[in-house]
């Protein structure tokens, strides 16, 4: 059965109290706004420590946080690691930023040398304690130009054959000329801003991947025009001011 309206889309938001320190709630806000403007009902379910992981989400979202938050959620995440891997294997798109993405990767080497094993959904590992990158970032990707703000001291090393989200044209990204990593329809990135409101094409890619699994059509319409116009204008200014120097004392 195919239907373009009134389909309830479930977004699973992982550890919002711990891992949304760089405004990643905005990524959920962007997905919700675009889905609702396309006529879909949206159901956001938050997973917090100690709760049961909800069944059958259409999209899984996770964000950034300090190392103390990474440690705080770690045991709960590991308990749910198998369930999350199954979702990814089933083609549920994950959209992951910063520390949350690193937890879903191969592992994190912290600045003191400690290694935290990851869930293994994304094919990369992170190394903390490298020189910090702060400022606007511009990336050329399969979804077009992606812009945002980066603020991290983390180098992402992709597994052999893994595909980055894109090529950095301004900024630091993974630390080696690339930014992020993709795994099937899932995306991991270090870009904040938050990234999805600023980059509607990326939001639409996540939404399409989620709805295609359920054989539901999705297309942005006139109801999305203002979101898209303001995002385009924001992106123009970011590209123009990309060399802004920020205080990092």
């Amino acid at each position, binding site marked *: 059965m195919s239907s373009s309206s009134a389909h309830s889309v479930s977004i699973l938001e992982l550890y919002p*109290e*711990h891992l*949304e*320190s*760089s*405004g*990643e*709630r*905005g990524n959920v*806000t*962007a997905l919700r*706004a675009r889905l609702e403007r396309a006529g879909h009902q949206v159901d956001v379910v938050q997973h917090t420590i100690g709760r049961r992981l909800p069944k059958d989400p259409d999209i899984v979202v996770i964000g950034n*946080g*300090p*190392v*103390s*938050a990474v*440690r*705080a959620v770690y045991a709960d995440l590991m308990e749910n690691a198998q369930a999350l891997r199954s979702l990814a294997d089933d083609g549920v798109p994950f959209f992951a930023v910063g520390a949350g993405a690193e937890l879903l990767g191969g592992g994190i080497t912290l600045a003191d040398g400690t290694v935290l094993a990851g869930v293994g959904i994304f094919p990369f590992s992170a190394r903390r304690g490298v020189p*910090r990158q*702060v*400022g606007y970032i511009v990336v050329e990707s399969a979804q077009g130009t992606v812009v945002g*703000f980066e*603020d991290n*001291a983390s180098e992402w090393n992709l597994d052999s054959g893994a595909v980055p989200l894109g090529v950095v044209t301004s900024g630091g990204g993974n630390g080696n000329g690339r930014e992020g990593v993709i795994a099937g329809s899932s995306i991991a990135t270090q870009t*904040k*801003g*938050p990234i999805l*409101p*600023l980059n509607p094409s990326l939001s639409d890619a996540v939404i399409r991947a989620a709805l295609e699994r359920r054989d539901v059509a999705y297309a942005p319409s006139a109801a999305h025009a*203002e*979101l898209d116009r*303001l*995002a385009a*204008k*924001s992106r*123009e*200014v970011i590209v123009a*001011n990309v060399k*802004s120097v*920020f*205080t*990092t*004392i």
Partner: protein
Amino acid sequence: MRYIAPVLVGRAVRAVTRARGGGSALPGYIVNKMAPGFIKNVVAQFEYGIVFVLGSNGKSTTTHMLTEVLRGHGLTVFTNPSGANLPQGISSALLSEVGVTGKLKADIGILEVDEAFALELSKTLLPSTILMLNVQVDQLYRFFETEVVADMMLDTAAVATQHVISNRDDAYLSKIGEILSKKGSVVPDVTYFGAAPKLVADSAHGLFNAANHREEASTAPIDALAELESWDSTGARIRVGGELADVVLPAKGLHYGIDAAAALATAAQVLGTEFDLAKASAAFSSMTPAYGRGELLDFGNEKVEFVMFKNAASLQLNLDALPAAPEQVMVAIDEGTPDVSWLYDIDFAQLDHVDVLTGAKAWQFALRLEHEGIPVGTIEPDLKKAIELMRALPAPTTGHKTWVVNYEQMMLARKIIGYGDMEVSF
């Protein structure tokens, strides 16, 4: 005598920089270079020592409140102009007050200090008292992680030679008592301020203090020497010890009420038996707001209320303090606020529209508001033109327009409407 040359040179530089418009940290820098012992010798003259005011938000306001309360007790107070909280700014401020021989006639120094420089400055200034206001998510692009900021404050507090005054309701700062007693320290003593639990529970977004992911919350209740009991558009009621005081707030809001409680707790500790709550309350009556913190400025035949924000906490708490959706609103935000990711953490329910959005980040702010369906009249990135658009609007029935501004746009906007002189900052 050895300070005469550096002081005169510093003053000359100060005169030149001010003549060119605006204050500067440069003269302080020059004096520091010429006479590294200058500050240490000047501040050793304070009979009541030096108070550092630390915190993510509220430093300028609380410094101002504490200064006025102590002046109300007859003390001569040396303080730094609001925002001048980096080492060079503090030296510049000292320079404007001392005689050419380095003599300073003041009983106490009250200084707002940037968190990142507090520990370093404490080595020169040897603060007797440290007041810690709050740890809120602020300038992550600069501090990386909020707990780093918490540790900057907690580490500085430990070097106070007499008193620490801390926030009972802050997940990090409420730990200072435990931290110091674990060390077995006898000095400094620790005193708390706070807000009545019901006030916090009733606040739409609580206190917006940062979450502490590394430590469990204390289970033992902590007594507060000064507790905010209530606040409204006219002022705040604060219990200090067993006594109640009604004070006029220079700006309205729960956070300003808590700042007042912090100032009262600190004054009580610094003054000891000389503290007089009636004198303290009276001092609040004549206080003017700090720059951009609830200030009403003339704008033609109308007034403009400035609501300044630096980060998520200050924007949310200031929005929450608005009595109703403002009739005419301008929002101004530029690259002075580098990372605006946190705009998506803000609840904008207090705004039913924005008339004019301006500054380099106007489009990003508009994009945020569009996600909430809040209509925006005009987006005009140029501040001067935006101000003219606001001027062209009919007179608001409330008599004032509301300008929600980041620090940099506030300073520019003040200048454009004829209030040029001058907070000093970097």
